[in-house]
């Protein structure tokens, strides 16, 4: 469903992504790991359509369409979801209103009628239970005054509501205690179906104890330097990133 070819991108003239290729098939979970500053979040931003990132080369096709030519909201309506590393607060806008607008915009895009108020509230209730989000959170303004953990759970809740085809979770595990981590991971596992895919960006192996990836990539200095099965995550956890760095440097010398 997603085919990234030789993607290069820069921010304010500084080259961040230096030629990334990645192929994601329906139903797969890809984990992207890597040290700080390797370009993980930039990759997520490019896929979601943030404008401050300049694409300098490469292509991204999404179900055969040119993803880079689509607006951020069209990507969302076509089923791309970004779980933010730092979810944004929108004071005064209730979660109900926010989600109703989002869900109905997406339905409109696909030629469906908007949900009635009662159907919508029913859907909210179901999804809240599914991801074990406190029902009070849904009555508050979007992320306003939420704790770090609540914000992340709220991202998973929104993901459940929007039922994306491709969800990109940008360090959703950072700053979570073990209970919150379990709730977030369970949410992902419940939403997971045979035809939707996940790109899980993470710094640590521990999230991958709960969300089992099909493929693990290591991103370093703007390139994917290693791709392997789930056992790669364990190796990274045990040995750190230094050996990868060394390998890359040796390759360059060789």
């Amino acid at each position, binding site marked *: 469903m997603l085919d990234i070819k030789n993607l290069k991108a820069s921010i304010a003239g500084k080259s961040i992504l230096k030629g990334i290729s990645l192929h994601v098939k329906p139903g797969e979970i890809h984990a992207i790991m890597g040290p700080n500053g390797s370009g993980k979040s930039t990759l997520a931003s490019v896929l*979601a*359509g*943030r404008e401050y990132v300049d694409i300098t080369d490469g292509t991204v096709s999404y179900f055969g369409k040119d993803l880079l030519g689509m*607006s*951020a*909201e069209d*990507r*969302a*309506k076509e089923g791309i*979801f*970004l779980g*933010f590393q730092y*979810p*944004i607060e*929108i*004071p*005064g*806008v*209730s979660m109900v*209103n*926010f989600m109703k*607008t*989002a869900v109905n*915009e*997406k339905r409109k*895009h696909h030629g469906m009628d908007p949900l009635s108020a009662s159907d919508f509230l029913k859907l909210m209730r179901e999804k809240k239970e599914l991801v074990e989000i406190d029902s009070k959170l849904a009555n508050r*303004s*979007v992320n306003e005054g939420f704790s770090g953990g609540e914000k992340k759970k709220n991202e998973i809740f*929104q993901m459940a509501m*929007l039922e994306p085809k491709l969800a990109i979770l940008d360090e959703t595990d950072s700053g979570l205690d073990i209970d919150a981590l379990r709730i977030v991971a369970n949410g992902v596992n419940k939403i997971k179906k045979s035809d939707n895919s996940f790109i899980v960006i993470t710094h640590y192996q521990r999230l991958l104890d709960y969300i089992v990836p099909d493929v693990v990539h290591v991103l370093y200095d703007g390139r994917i330097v290693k791709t392997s099965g789930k056992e790669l995550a364990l190796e990274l956890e045990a040995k750190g990133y230094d050996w990868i760095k060394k390998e890359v440097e040796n390759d360059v010398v060789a």
Partner: protein
Amino acid sequence: MDQDRILDEVTSGEYKYGFYSDIEAEQIQKGLNEDVIKTISAKKEEPSWLLEFRLKAFRHWQTMKMPAWPNLKIPAIDYQDIIYYSAPRQKAKLNSLDEVDPELKKTFDKLGIPLEEQKHLAGVAVDAVLDSVSVKTTFRETLAEMGIIFCSFSVAVKEYPELVKRYMGTVVPYTDNYFAALNSAVFSDGSFCYVPKGVRCPMELSTYFRINAANTGQFERTLLVADEESYVSYLEGCTAPMRDENQLHAAIVEIIAEKNAEVKYSTVQNWYPGDKDGKGGIFNFVTKRGMCRGESSKISWTQIETGSAITWKYPSCILRGDNSIGEFYSVAVTNNYQQADTGTKMIHIGKNTKSTIVSKGISAGKGQNSYRGLVKVLKNASNARNFSQCDSLLLGDKCGAHTFPYLEVDNQTAVVEHEATTSKIGEDQIFYCNQRGISTEDAVALIVNGYAREVINKLPMEFAVEAQKLLQISLEGSVG
């Protein structure tokens, strides 16, 4: 860029009420002097006491200067270049007194204000004012059955001179300020309402102000009296044609609430704001004040200010009765080159008086938005309470928000609280919405409506939806 395109599209076509109706008008000569005032008074067949009042006001006005303290840039106004009286000429052959010229009816139909009672929103009575005169007041008879008087100011002067004489100028004396003095000299019509003791007015009363003729000013007065234990909810709306020249609107609203009475006064102000380059638009210089005369009385102002090139108004409450309550809820929008200096005064005189101020300014384009508020607690106002909250929301980086709160507290037992915030609709917020499939336009509308919700919720239900749409239209395209 996309942003410029949207901005262009919207600012050039957004004002829906900019049309002009070709209605034959009876006008007097341009200019202002005692003869003009005598002419206006004579046209309205006024009693001599009212002419005296006008002349005294005019003489006082001549000694005054335009206020220089507002945070506004007001171009010089030539008061001799304004027509002070313009009345649509009604076709002579009307079958009954209640009938309205079809051309006028069409104008108000176009504004969404049908003048036939059966067609109108259930539960809303309207006084329709075009330029200098009231053209029709609906539901007069229905209301009269309950003893409620609702009519144009001119009719009130003729039919209820004692009531008008007793209350007019008691809350806003003609000496109050420059524009109040001007209005007192030349006012031509407006609405009058009296709700008798113990009566709860069963419908929303409203006045719809329309400026139509060119080169005219609109100077209307509204007087609202709620006798003991009564209740009334009142709404005013206003629009004007799009023109390159500025037009002056200087009104007075006076409210009197007796013991245990409650008055809710809502405004949806949508005067023509001028074009995107700041050309044209209405100067809206208005004095609005309510007096809580009796104990435990309550006056509540709600205003949604989206129009006008320049707004200068401070709907205020004088809390004279013990335990009386004053409220002010405001959303003021300035887009393009609009300027607003608006807020309120809460004067605590009685004991245990309470006031609440919630002001939400929204600035976009090159708009300048100032909140100016006074909370004054007099010596005898023990246990007075005030809570003020002034928030500013900025869209873009070429607009401005300013806050000028004044506190004068002469009683030790008073508790006065003031909170203020300034926020900006950030790119991050917009992107967050975009990523959930919400377009930028819808995201701005969501955020602005969320921000203004507390105030919009205070409007009568029928108008809350309208106000929400109006906010959206006023700001469309201001963030990209």
